């Protein structure tokens, strides 16, 4: 049996294209002498006629002929320091969500998460612009009436109250940018043949929010969340519907694992659209990697 190295080398040689002048180059140690142009041509040394180019009297970088250069025209505002890299959560109102539900653009008989909201085509976000998910705003909190299992990235107390008053459940959930790209367009992700990524834990400044039962964080203690539900009902003065007696209790209590990004699919799986099958790794190294986060 040939050794792995020779095998790989042979495979490389087999798969590489035929050697030609177009795909080889000299060794790094090769040196080339400067081409000395003898004759009339070398009079100006390639610098042209007169001017700054030949006399090395270029204007300083950024100089705009006396016009106030761009670097001078905009003042440096230190208080804007980190604003370009802060996390952003593009908003969508409760009213908009209710409208989507009423117009059957969102299926309430299944859990509603960022994928469902993006699949309506009415909400878009861009990972490259530091968008980290959907932010449900309070407009429409008094007309919201849909029993929904909602999973979003940012929200306020009033929205939580509105959703829970209608008999639904709400969870705030963090997704890292790689997962967000897959969530925004799952079709494109599967067409690239990439394995489903495992979701990383939130960064330190977001961890407090996503582990807070007041905001129904996915890392919070479930018992504390139940307590918070009751507290909120008392604060806003509505009767908290009994989840235990609910016919769609299983739907409302459906939650993703902290590492999972798609319902029913686990990290490490590969969805092949052509063969309409799922490829799952069996090797223990791979399973360990995809089912653990550090």
């Amino acid at each position, binding site marked *: 049996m040939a050794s792995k190295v020779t095998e790989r080398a042979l495979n490389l040689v087999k798969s590489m*294209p035929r050697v030609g002048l177009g795909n080889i180059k000299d060794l790094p140690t090769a040196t080339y002498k400067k081409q000395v142009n003898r004759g009339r041509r070398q009079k100006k040394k390639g610098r042209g006629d007169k001017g700054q180019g030949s006399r090395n009297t270029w204007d300083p970088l950024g100089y705009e002929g006396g016009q106030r250069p761009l670097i001078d025209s905009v003042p440096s505002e230190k208080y804007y320091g980190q604003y370009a890299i802060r996390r952003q959560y593009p908003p969508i109102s409760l009213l908009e969500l209710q409208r989507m539900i009423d117009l059957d653009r969102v299926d309430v008989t299944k859990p509603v998460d960022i994928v469902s909201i993006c699949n309506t085509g009415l909400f878009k976000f861009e990972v490259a612009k530091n968008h980290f998910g959907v932010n449900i705003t309070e407009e429409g909190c008094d007309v919201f009436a849909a029993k929904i299992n909602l999973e979003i990235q940012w929200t306020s107390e009033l929205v939580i109250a509105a959703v829970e008053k209608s008999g639904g459940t709400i969870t705030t959930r963090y997704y890292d940018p790689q997962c967000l790209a897959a969530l925004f367009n799952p079709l494109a992700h599967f*067409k*690239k043949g990439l394995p489903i990524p495992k979701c990383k834990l939130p960064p330190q400044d977001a*961890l407090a929010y996503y*582990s807070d039962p007041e905001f129904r964080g996915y*890392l919070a203690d479930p018992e504390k969340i139940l307590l918070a539900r009751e507290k909120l009902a008392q604060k806003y003065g509505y009767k908290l519907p009994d989840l235990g007696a609910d016919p769609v209790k299983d739907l409302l209590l459906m939650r993703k694992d902290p590492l999972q990004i798609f319902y029913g699919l686990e990290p490490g799986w*590969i969805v092949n659209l*052509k063969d309409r099958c799922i490829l799952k790794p069996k090797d223990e*190294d791979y399973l360990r990697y995809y089912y653990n986060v*550090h």
Partner: protein
Amino acid sequence: MASLPSLTLKLIARRSQSSLRCGLITRLSRSYTTAREGTQISDEEEQSRINNLRNASGLPENLYKIYHGQAPNLSYKDLHKRKMLYAQLGAASGEDPRILWPSRAKLLDMEQEEIEEGSPLAERFARIQAEKVEAEKAKLERRNIIAKNMQQMPKLIAEYKKKQANIEAAAKERAAKKEILLQEARDVFGYKVQAHDPKFLQMTEEKELLEKAEKKKQKKEAKLKKSEQWHKQLSEPTPQDSTQT
């Protein structure tokens, strides 16, 4: 019969182009195939000839394959291309699906990196709690300092007011003195003199010197008086002494 061999010669010439457009020619060429239906074709050339015959559309090889969902015949495929082919065509691509996952070495490397970069969740929660407690403590400390300083406030205000009053009083005194001097100068010169007038300034200087001299004289006189008194006391006999003797 004489025409048929010439037609087959034309076929052989055209085979390299792999574009058989005339249906008549294909029908005729079929009658000349060496293989029969159902037998194994071992020759690769024969196989490619058959494939060309099947390619009735006359599409180039790889386009035909893409259209029919077959793996294209590429001279060079890098890893990314192979992954994309598998994703696009599935098992029909002929690629090993194992290439879709990262290699074991890379996977272990990624895992190691994650372990090094990350810290346990319990630790992170503890850090959040600690930061909260610290913030509370700092707030409390600041409030204590403020309370302590506020207790001092009445005293500080009184001190400040006193200082301001002193400054004002001193200023007033100076102004009053100056006013007196100006009045005297007015009497001396016969008209209202300006304060910055050199005549007035000279007058004030002279006055100051006189006053100094006077003061010195008075001091000396006072000293002399004191010393005289002292001598007097010493020379006088005390009543106690007289009685004793």
